[in-house]
C-alpha cells in the first residue's frame, strides 16, 4: 500500500516538474516571438516611411508651375504653367514666330519616367502635341512637337526660370 502511494507521488512530482519545465520554455519562446513580431512591424513601418518619403519627394519635385523659357523651332518661346493638380497641369505657350503663337495647353507629367506630354487646346492650323522629358533636377524640359495637321515635327528646349 505504501509503495502504491510512493509511486503516485513520484509520478505526480515528475508531472509537476515537467509541467513547470514546459511553462518556462514557453515563457522563453514568447519573447522571441514578440521580438520577431516587433521587428516585422518595424520593417514594415520603415518601408512605409521610405515609400511615403519617396512619394513626398516626387510630389515635391514634380512642381511644374512657373515660367519655362527657351526655343521652339529655334524661336523664342515661353511656357507658363499656371495650374497643377497632381500630375496634371494647364498653362499657355507663346512662340515668337512672325505671327506669334499664343496657345493654351494642358498636359500630364509622369514622375516615374519624367516624361511630360501636353497638347494645344485652341483650334488652329498649327495646333499639335508636345512630348518630351524633364531633367532629373526638374529644371529642363525638351522634346518634340508634332503638328496635328501634317505631322511635321519641331524640337523645343525649355528651362525653368
Amino acid at each position: 500500500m505504501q509503495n502504491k502511494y510512493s509511486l503516485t507521488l513520484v509520478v505526480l512530482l515528475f508531472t509537476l516538474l515537467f509541467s513547470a519545465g514546459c511553462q518556462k520554455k514557453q515563457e522563453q519562446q514568447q519573447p522571441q516571438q514578440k521580438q520577431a513580431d516587433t521587428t516585422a512591424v518595424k520593417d514594415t513601418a520603415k518601408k512605409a516611411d521610405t515609400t511615403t518619403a519617396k512619394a513626398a519627394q516626387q510630389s515635391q519635385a514634380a512642381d511644374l508651375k512657373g515660367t519655362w523659357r527657351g526655343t521652339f523651332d529655334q524661336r523664342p518661346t515661353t511656357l507658363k504653367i499656371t495650374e497643377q493638380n497632381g500630375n496634371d497641369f494647364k498653362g499657355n505657350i507663346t512662340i515668337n514666330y512672325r505671327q506669334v503663337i499664343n496657345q493654351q495647353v494642358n498636359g500630364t507629367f509622369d514622375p516615374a519616367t519624367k516624361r511630360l506630354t501636353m497638347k494645344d487646346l485652341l483650334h488652329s492650323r498649327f495646333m499639335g502635341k508636345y512630348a518630351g522629358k524633364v531633367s532629373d533636377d526638374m529644371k529642363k524640359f525638351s522634346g518634340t512637337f508634332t503638328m496635328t495637321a501634317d505631322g511635321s515635327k519641331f524640337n523645343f528646349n525649355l528651362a525653368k526660370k
Partner: protein
Amino acid sequence: MKKYFLFIIILLTSVIFYSCGSDTSTNPEPAAQKGSIYVTSDLPGAQIWNGTTNTNKVTPDSITGLDAGNYSITLKFQGLRDTTISATVKAGEKTTLKVKLPLSVVTFGPVRIWETFGTNASQPSGLQLSTGTPYSTSVTDKVDLYFFSTSTPTYKILTGTARNTYFFVGSSANLSDTVSAPLKTSSWKQEVPVPVTGLTNYIFAYDQDQHYSKILFAIGGGNPGIPSYFDVTYIYNLVPNDRRFK
C-alpha cells in the same frame, strides 16, 4: 563863231545818218527774222536731231538761227525708241517743244523670296532686280536685295552684299499710281526695317546698275513650318537713271 558851230552840228548829224543807212543796207536779213526751237523732255539728256542732222545738243536746249518754216525734230535716248515731232518756226519767235519720251519698263512678279533665318537652299532670300530671279544670298554677284531675318524675329530688306542697292519708302501702296521715283540722294538707305505686319507702301530702289525700280512687298508665312516670305511685285525701269514709271 556861231556859223562854225552850226556847221559842225550839221556835219556830225549827217555822218550819223549816213552810218545808219549803211548798216541796213549791208544786212538785209536782220536777226529778228530768225527763229528758234527750245526742246525739253521729261527725261533730260536726249540727243536733239534736226531732221537727219545731229545738233550735238541734249535736252533741255535750243536750236537757234532757224528760218521760219516747218522742222522735224527727233529726240534720241539710248534704250528708248526715237521720238520725232514737227515744229513750226516763226520769224523772231521761240518755239517750245515739250516731249514725252517713251517709257521702257518691265513688270516682274510676284516673285517669292524667303527670310534668311530657318530656311534652306530651296527657299532663296535674294532677288536680282533686272531679271526678277530669286537667288540664294551666297550668289553675291546677282543679288540686289534680300529678305534678312533673325529668330527674334527681326526683319529687314537689305542691299545685296556685293551689289549696292538703295531704298526709299514710297507714300502709296498702288504700284500703278504712275508716280516717279525721287532722285536718288544720300537720304536713300541700304536697308528698310520691316514690321512683323509687313510693308504697306511700295519702295523705290536704285541698284548697282543705276536702274530705278518700284517694288511692292507682300508678306506671308511666319508660322511653324512656313518661314516668312515676301511675294515681290515690281516695275523695273530698263533705262539707267530714268525715274519715270508712267
